[in-house]
Structures are given as C-alpha cells and as structure tokens.
C-alpha cells in the first residue's frame, strides 16, 4: 500500500501511518505536496542516532483529507545538522523548528526565530550542549 502525492510516494508502515524518507533538498518539495492535501504539521520529532552519526528528523503531518499521518523522515548529519526551514510553506512549523533547534541543535535555514533558551535553562545553554542529544550529559 502506498500513497502518492505529486512526485513522492509514501509507504504504509501501519494503519493510517504513511512514511517517506527524503534528503534535505527534497524536503521543501514534499512539504508543498503534503500541504496541498489539507494537512497541518503536527510535530517535528528529532531522534539522535549517534551510532550512525545522524539525527533523524520526523516531520509528522496529519492530513485531514486522507485521515492519515504522513511522516517525512529527513536524516541529517550530526556534525553539520542543517535543513531548509519550511516555516514559509507551513507557518505552523515556526515554533516547532525553534523547539528542535533548542533541544537538539538542528539549524533550520531561513527561520529567523531560532534562538537558544526557548525552553532550555540558561546554565545548560551556557555549557553549549543540546540536552536531548544522547551525549549531552545533562
């Protein structure tokens, strides 16, 4: 079973959950295709995978039209975690991106609101660590 939106084919992982893995450069294209399907951005969940040297970003959309969660997975490198921001395509993404930046240290290029201390206490910010990374030591 799969769900095709434009050029992108989402595969079904469980009932009402569809997922696709894309690269950083494809992200904005997928986001545009998903938004056309009456979807809102539910969450950006970042998972730290130090063994692979990656951080996996899960953009979880809920499509009101398809009644399904559309998960866009974007693996980024841990050393240089940069992805383009989708906050201009989905305005609801702005604060989620800020949260991920604060907790995981992923930089969203084009989001002007990024700042530390959105959630994290100042003493942790001063140490320069991102608390949800596995090696942060907090």
């Amino acid at each position, binding site marked *: 079973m799969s769900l095709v939106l434009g050029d992108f084919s989402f595969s079904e992982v469980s009932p009402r959950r569809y997922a696709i893995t894309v690269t950083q450069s494809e992200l904005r294209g997928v986001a545009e295709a998903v938004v056309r399907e009456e979807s809102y951005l539910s969450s950006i969940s970042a998972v730290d995978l130090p063994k692979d040297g990656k951080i996996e970003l899960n953009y979880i959309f809920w499509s009101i039209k398809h009644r399904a969660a559309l998960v866009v997975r974007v693996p980024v490198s841990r050393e240089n975690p940069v992805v383009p921001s989708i906050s201009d395509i989905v305005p609801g993404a702005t604060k989620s991106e800020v949260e991920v930046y604060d907790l995981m240290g992923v930089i969203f290029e084009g989001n002007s609101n990024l700042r530390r201390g959105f959630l*994290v206490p100042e003493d942790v910010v001063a140490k320069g660590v991102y608390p949800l990374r596995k090696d942060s030591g907090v």
Partner: protein
Amino acid sequence: MVVVEIPIGPQHPALHEPIMLKVKTDGEEVVEVAVTTGYNHRGIEKLLEKNSWIRGMYIAGRVCGICNAVHTQTYVQGVEKLMGIEPTPRANYIRTMVMELERIHSHLLICAVMAEIVGFDTLFMLIMRDRERVMHLKELVTGNRVHADIHVLGGVKRDLDEVRRTRILDELRKIEERLKYYKKVYETDYTLVRRLSEVGRISKSDAIRLSLVGPTLRASGIKSDVRSDDPYAAYSEVPFNIEYRDEGDSWARMMVRLDEALESVNIVRYTAEKLPQGPAVPKTVPRAAKPGEVISRVEAPRGELLYHIVSTGGSNPYRVKIRTPSFLNILNTESTYLGHRLADVPVIFASYDPCISCTERVIVVDEKSGKKAYVSLKELARGG
C-alpha cells in the same frame, strides 16, 4: 505613532498560568503580540529516556495535571503497541470513561475561567461548584481527584464495581442538567456574547495553515477529531457526534467546548451502561518492548496530543517526543490578536484554553519583575 509595549501576565489570581504575552499597542489597538514562554524546561522527554517503561506511565501523566489521563493513555497505547499487547474491552471502556470525565472537568474549568476573565464572578463560582461533582466522580472511578493513574500496561489498575457504576449514572443526570444550563447562559447572556463574539476570529484556511488542533480547529468549521479519525481505546464502538461551529471566534470556541462536554456526558453514560464483562485488570506486568517506533495520537481536551516513541528494545524507551495541543494552539496564534483592542487580548488568549505546563513541559518561572508594571489578565480584561 507611539507604540507601547505592555507585558501581560503571568500572575493571574485564579488560574496562575505563568505565561507572558508581550503586547505592543498603538493606542488601544494591538499591533504585535509575542508569546514568551519556556522560561525553563522540566526535561520530561529526557527523564522518560532515563526511566523504565513502567515508571514512564506515571511521569507522562505528570506532564499536565488537568489532562493527565490522556497523557498516560497516549503513552500506554504506544508502549502497548511496541510490546504487542492488547487491553481487554472492559479496560478500554473504563479508560474511555476516565478520559471523558476529564474532558468534562477540563472544559468546565476553562468556561469558569473565561467567565472570571470577563468579570462574571458569579458564573465562575457556580461552575466551579458544579465541577466538584465531576471531580468526585473521577475520584470514585480512579481513586484520585486529579491524577487518575488508572492505566497499567494491558489494562486498568482497578475494576469498576456495580455500586460505583450506578452512582456514576445517577450523578451524570445532575451534571448534564447543569451543563445544559451553562450552555444556555453562554448562548444567551448579553455580557458573555458581546464580549466573546467577533473576537479573535480564525478562518478555516488559517486554522489549518497555523496547524491548530482540537476545539480551536473545530470552531473554525473543520470536522477533525482524533477520536473518530484515528480511533483508540473504545471510541470505535461508542457512538458520538463531532461538535463543530463555523464562526471561528472566541464565542464559537467556548460553545464547541460546552457542546463537547455534553457529548462527553453521553459517552460516559454509554460506557457505564454498556460496560463489557470480562477481566479489566491484567495479571502480568510486562517490562520489555520490541524495537520499533510508534506514533500515538489521542484527542486531549485541548486537541490532538501526539507521542512519538522510539524503542531499541530493552526496558527503557530510546526517545519519546511529546507534542501537546497547547504548544500549537498558543504559540501559533500570535497573529490572531492583531487589530483587536487591548482588553480583548486575555479573552482571546483564554479561548485557546491555555495550559502552560503542557506547552513547555517546563518549570515555569514567574516573570513578575519589580521594574515593569505587570498587569493581571483579569485586571486587563476589565480595562484596568
């Protein structure tokens, strides 16, 4: 043009929502609002990684005290999926009942607070009095007025006996009668209607664009409810309507909540009447999960609650991402205050049913510094 920056909050005499709205005004008109939250992080996502699946159930419930059963439900149903266990039908019915009781008391609370914010203290006191009935029912079913903690992996912690079941049905009649009365008050009262309607309007397309959820989304005419779109617990068996309104203003949001609370009464009644026979309390305590990941969604009183749980096997979760409804509803609605008068800001803010402990999972700090003149929401709404 002189733009004045007014920080609002966080010392509210009733609700104590520690959030700050930095409002820039030109005269009476609001030209910019920045929601400043997240003074500090309670670190729950990290804490869950450090604790076992079983301890996690209780920590998840303590993300938010008002909607704790739904938090536990979201966590537990995700973990159950990872462990490959299925709760019994009776357990599912009891879970549903607890979650719906919670929805009633949460909606009553915000209706009371909204009444207080617009200066209608009598209504506040009356609603709070009748809310005690719901709290009592919740205590009767779960054993605690606030933190239900009734979920365990594979079922519920305590069964519902016949005496309690009859008691619930009795009390529901009274609660329903009071709810209908308060709905009538919100519908017809001159002050409330004048204060709430045409304030903070969000159009259908904006609601989706801003990623709003729950009653806020449904008040803008979108029929989206996790309970019917993505059924969990016993919702696939329970008949209920999705309440929605087309106006999209603060008044519509409150009406959606009151309608929903009435619908919840029906759901609780249905679950109590049609409670399936069989066991509800599991005999074993599962401790290890298989590797995998799961996206668990639940309709909390404030909207869609989402947990993304990643497991690599073993006794602890690898990563738990919590996205609470208030996170989206509060932080993404900064633009909806623009063009309104300053006194409308607290009304709009309260109409999103803000729950700060949910939003930030933080240790919230009172930002009331001596240098600036901070105004309470209540004073402001009264033109103070």
